[in-house]
């Protein structure tokens, strides 16, 4: 009997305690990110200052961002979402929002206004590409090349079509093993005007045209699937030039001192940011909202640029980016003379179709 009473009493206490916390904010937060230098920049710029202000909070990291969509879907089906905040690229955010796996939010309520007083919605502007997406950074997919492999008497490559010019710039290239970006570049260099690229790519003939252009360099291409591949191939001297994320090239050039140069022409802008998984407990949600309000303000976003060469998503953060980092930012005027913006809606529709075509072309 006594044991029973104790059990009952203690369970009643636990219930009371958990109700008490539910009205408050939970003190544990699981953040999902990409690992490596990028996650480190988030740790330094957002999480460490936040934990300093709120020492009661423990943050658990999970480096699963590249499979976040599949994992979130599985968690949702098992009705057991264990993540509180997930860092994903914009295309994945759109998919998660479409599937009802990410929570829609109200920018005015959730995000702080800019330092200059601009409302959050205007400060982020068009970068809020989905109702669930809280942008953090602008990054770009662009080319790097070995400066010591440029043939004598020839200028270093400085435009996208040099990638397709095997005569002037002989050597291997590395391209990502998926159609996105490659198809656009191929069409651009096959004489299609920039604003017609997606209209052309939507047709079967346009896809053939792009693949025919890629065919001209197919034998010299090494296909990569992880962002670290191209920097490694460049450092090993395996390739002459290759595409990857600009932050990766920055670390090859600045931190590892490799003879590598940047070619910013026709770089493709993309976004990375947070989503909040749908169906969080109230206490967890309150904590996440509190953290996000802090982590996406003007100062925090600008501070992240100290640790990695990606541009902050807020306009009001741009002036605060340290001078020595500005030249490495994809958004720097000098670098962004000719840019492309990832067309989310187009690829949401055509990804499966073109991917099947592209993979079968690769296998030929």
């Amino acid at each position, binding site marked *: 009997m006594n044991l029973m009473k104790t059990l009952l009493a203690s369970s009643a206490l636990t219930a009371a305690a958990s109700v008490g916390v539910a009205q408050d904010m939970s003190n544990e937060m699981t953040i999902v990110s990409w690992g490596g230098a990028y996650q480190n920049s988030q740790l330094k710029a957002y999480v460490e200052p936040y934990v300093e202000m709120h020492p009661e909070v423990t943050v658990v990291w999970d480096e699963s961002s*590249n*499979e976040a*969509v*599949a994992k979130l*879907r599985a968690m949702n089906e098992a009705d057991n979402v264990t993540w509180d905040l997930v860092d994903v690229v914009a295309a994945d955010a759109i*998919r998660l*929002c*479409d*599937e*009802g796996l990410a929570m829609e939010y109200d920018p005015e309520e959730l995000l702080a206004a800019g330092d200059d007083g601009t409302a959050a919605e205007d400060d982020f502007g068009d970068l809020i590409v989905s109702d669930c997406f809280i942008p953090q950074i602008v990054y770009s997919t662009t080319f790097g090349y070995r400066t010591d492999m440029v043939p004598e008497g020839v200028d270093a490559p400085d435009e996208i079509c040099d990638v397709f010019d095997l005569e002037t710039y002989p050597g291997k290239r590395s391209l990502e*093993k998926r159609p996105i970006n490659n198809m656009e570049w191929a069409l651009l260099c096959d004489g299609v005007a920039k604003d017609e690229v997606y209209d052309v790519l939507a047709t079967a003939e346009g896809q*053939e045209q792009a693949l025919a252009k890629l065919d001209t360099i197919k034998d010299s291409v*090494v*296909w990569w*699937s992880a962002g670290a591949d191209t920097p490694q191939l460049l450092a*090993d*001297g*395996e390739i002459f030039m290759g595409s990857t994320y600009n932050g990766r090239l920055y670390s090859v050039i600045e931190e590892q001192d490799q003879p590598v140069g940047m070619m910013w022409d026709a770089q493709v802008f993309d976004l990375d940011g947070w989503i909040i998984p749908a169906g969080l407990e109230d206490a967890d949600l309150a904590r996440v909202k509190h953290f996000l309000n802090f982590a996406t303000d003007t100062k925090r976003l600008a501070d992240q640029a100290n640790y990695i060469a990606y541009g902050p998503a807020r306009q009001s953060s741009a002036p605060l980016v340290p001078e020595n980092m500005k030249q490495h930012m994809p958004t720097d005027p000098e670098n962004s003379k000719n840019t492309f913006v990832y067309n989310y*809606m187009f690829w*949401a*529709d*055509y*990804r*499966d*179709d073109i*991917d*099947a*075509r592209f*993979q*079968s*072309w*690769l*296998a030929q």
Partner: protein
Amino acid sequence: MSNAKDDDAVAGPVPVAPVPNAPTESGPVLAADGTPLKRSLSRALRRQKGRALLLVAPLLIFVLVTFIIPIGSMLFRSVENDIVSNTLPYTVQRLASWEAESGNLPSEDVYKAMYDDLFVAAEAKRHTRLGSRLNYEQTGISSLFRQSGRGVDDLAGDAADALEDAVPAFGEGETWYALMDAGSGEGNTTLLSNMRDRIGRLNDSAASAEMDFVPSAEIAAVLPRTARTYTEWAVYTVTEDERNPAERDPWELVSLALLEELPTADLSGLSAERAALLQQAQAVDFNVPSYRETLAEIDEEWGTVTPWETIQTHSSKYTAGYFLNAIDAQKTPDGYEWQPEEKQILLTLFGRTLFMSLMITGSCILLGYPVAWLLANLPAYKANLLMILVLLPFWTSLLVRTSAWKVMLQSQGVINDVLVWIGLVDDANRLVMINNQFGTIVAMTHILLPFMILPMYSVMQTVPPSYLRAAKSLGATNWTAFWRVYFPQSVPGIGAGSILVFILSIGYYITPEIVGGTSGVFISNRIAYHISSSLNWGLAAALGTILLAVVLVLYWCYDRIVGIDNVKLG
């Protein structure tokens, strides 16, 4: 006497069993406690079996819960297709009688059903999920549904505004509730349970929450669409939002349905208060446009036959579509056909997966056999050292081993550098040994080699060395002694190792992804892509099921040819 007869029969020379139909005069044999021996025996056996079952129960439950059920439910996705009829129930129902071949657009009725379905789906945020599903079959449907979800509430919003402007009481949730709820009158419980069912299926959950609302039978008779949409909303509000429908405004769709039904409705059968309220609303001048035009205005695709064909073709609860896609075919309104040639890839990949797995198994046998022989025949201290060398790769991360092969094989890598240095290969024509089939086969052979060596070793250890000596003393040459005496005894080890290596390699995807380039990837890489990138889990499940079936068939063939009893792990 009879006993003696029986004894004779049993002790008789040939028929051990009693002769069938032999006349027996005795009753059944009894056990000590008087029950028939047969029954008492079988009871004891049953108890034993039960105890044995209890002993293995934890393992059985563990395997069931963590292995069979998840895999079964994953494989089931390859045929599951109820999302279409769950999200668009009324459309699917009405579209069934439409003849796609006629080339005519579906009737206004179908458009109206689609409008209702889309509205509810958009409220529940299910329309984009359906869009992604249908996009696997028809490129472009994903954005059609996303676009439609955004635009669908415009018309209904106008209707709600018009109604509220004319009769402000309709701006109050309570008015609606009083109008639609049965209250003390007769309720239509069939409608309620149907709508509970429908909303539950839409949200993939059982709509079991308690609710007070019961749609009024008289309203449901006079204004069927209004009653239906209001009930849908009430069930949705209670189960999903967990709010009281009496305190909330219904979806604008209900206003639209009401305004459309009122002009032709016969209000004479209704109670006085209801009739009075509805008569006010009857005066509202709202022109309900054609739903076909409304949808075509949101997205012109609705004005074409294509999306309707796709919905109709793929509206059944179970589909063969994923399996067809998995073998490079597709289901079109005109029947089954192959994918266009430039999109065929999966059959090639299946073939390549089998071919390369066999190559890897073959090279593992060639490399592993001598090592296993050495291990089994060297003196113990040397064999132990060799064993450590064999096991060493086991203790190293898979990624490290794969990356090491990259360093070895790439064109600026160790092997090429050495070959160039000794002058065998020209610096300009370095060998291409990675990012192709060769790279995959080399790296995977190395990774899987221990799985071949260990079973072979443990079988060879049991072969007594005296057999070889005996063969030689009888005049056999070294080769004959090996081939006729030793090798047949080691075959079970080869069989066990081959099955292990083959089945492991058929499902590998990390190593081919890293060193396979374009010509050295497996079907498993495509499965991984569809699981984690394209989210087409149905296709991934179909590919997985086919792969599983192929492995089982090969296993069966192996059993027929070699015999599975011949496989030994030691």
